[in-house]
């Protein structure tokens, strides 16, 4: 028997074993039924519908921007978890940890770079995705609600990037966040420099910005708050909304011209 046949036999033994079949329920048999099962019975693929309009999968229709936004989110999650192993959100340690991570950790600099560029790419991709959806009128009935969820995801994307900006704890980050969070200081009623603040008694250590910062100025408390927001709170909310977003795409159908 030739070696090739031997290998075929081994392969057959493996893919027909009890264990293999318990994990991979469906083979690569190219039948219409199996193609549907491949999607519906797979945890990674089941958010896809079994079948889609031919129009909806064309690259020059979607520019792949929604999917790439999600990919960038996944990239930041993976690299972000790596960074979390080496980083302490404490005033005394944060910057030193950044240097340690960049100079001494294996692939530390690469992971940090990928985390940052993926985050920036995510912002750009969200905007382009929104632009594409607008150009194709894909927010029109029955997809109005998903557009709203998308706008919320856009805001969360910006907030994710913004809260991460503070974590390196260098000059760039604290001053960028100082500028960015001045809007909290200026918010009406709730900010101590906003209009009508005297009616609620907002002051520099007790107003919307102080709530965000954990004090009157950016300090170690701010770092911890932004860290929790960046690593837990906003990703959690964003993940929930993404599940809704993707599910609605599946339920409302891929957009395309009416037949």
């Amino acid at each position, binding site marked *: 028997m030739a070696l090739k046949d031997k290998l075929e036999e081994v392969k057959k033994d493996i893919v027909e074993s009890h264990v293999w079949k318990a994990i991979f329920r469906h083979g690569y048999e190219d039948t219409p039924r199996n193609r549907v099962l491949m999607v519906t019975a797979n945890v990674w693929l089941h958010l896809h519908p079994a079948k889609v309009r031919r129009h909806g999968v064309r690259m020059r229709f979607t520019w792949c921007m929604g999917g790439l936004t999600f990919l960038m989110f996944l990239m930041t999650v993976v690299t972000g978890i790596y960074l979390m192993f080496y980083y302490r959100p404490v005033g005394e340690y944060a910057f030193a940890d950044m240097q340690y991570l960049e100079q001494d950790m294996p692939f530390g600099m*690469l992971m940090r770079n990928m985390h940052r560029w993926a985050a920036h790419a995510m912002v750009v991709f969200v905007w382009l995705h929104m632009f594409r959806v607008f150009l194709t009128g894909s927010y029109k009935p029955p997809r109005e609600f998903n557009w709203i969820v998308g706008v919320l995801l856009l805001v969360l994307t910006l907030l994710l990037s913004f809260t991460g900006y503070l974590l390196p704890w260098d000059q760039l980050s604290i001053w960028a966040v100082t500028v960015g969070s001045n809007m909290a200081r200026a918010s009406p009623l709730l900010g101590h420099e906003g209009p009508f603040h005297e009616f609620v008694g907002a002051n520099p250590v007790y107003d919307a910005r102080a709530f965000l910062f954990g004090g009157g100025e950016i300090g170690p408390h701010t770092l911890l708050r932004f860290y929790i927001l960046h690593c837990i709170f906003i990703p959690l909310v964003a993940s929930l909304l993404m599940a809704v977003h993707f599910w609605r795409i599946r339920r409302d159908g891929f957009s395309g011209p009416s037949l």
Partner: protein
Amino acid sequence: MADEAQEKKKPASVDDKIHTWPHLVRGEFLVTIFVVVVLTLWALLLDAPLEEPANPTRTPNPSKAPWYFLGLQEMLVYYDPWHAGVVLPTLIIIGLMVIPFIDINPAGNGYYTFKDRKYEILTFFFGFHILWVSMIIIGTFFRGPGWNLFWPWEHWDPHKVQALTNVDLPYLVGFRDYYWSAAFGLFCVVAYFIVGMALFYYWVLRVKGKEFMERWGPVRFGITAFLMVTMLALPVKMFLRLALNVKYILATKWINI
């Protein structure tokens, strides 16, 4: 996709669905690999910045927000902080959310068309590309110390003299009394919105016709007109500031517009 060209020639049948596996999943997989490779190469070549350790006692000049917020920071030049930082961002978010409900044009649902959606697309293009993106470009490349305008190739001179001759509009036209100034400013702002919305009303009537206006209804019209006029206020404010050195139109103890 390889068989796409061949399939495209067929006339659209009612059942034009294809299997997600492999037609869609294969494409997603390939694009993912390609983009991850590009991102990795990019990350190998370009390092993320890390400056000196945080020092609350040393303020850099200029301090810039992250680039995607520079549009808002740039608006601080023309508006009060609470306006540029709170009111306008909120209106942008709400304005985006109401788009599906104020756009009742049934054409262009799910395909590219400029002809059928000329005004919708031009409005979005104006708001997104002209206002938002160009503000970011100005904030990123053309702002230096003191948030003064600099060309990208110009040396950032912190001592560049900025003529501080900005005045409020009521002052410019001769009002010297606080209450009269405020009243005049309020009049100007209200008049701007009333005239702007009225002009928008007649413009929509001219372009889309009476039948459309009736179908659109007063609520949709009101929201759209308000957002439209608010959006156009930014270039108006920019013109007043850059050409006439006008700081605020309405200036009171609490609210400046």
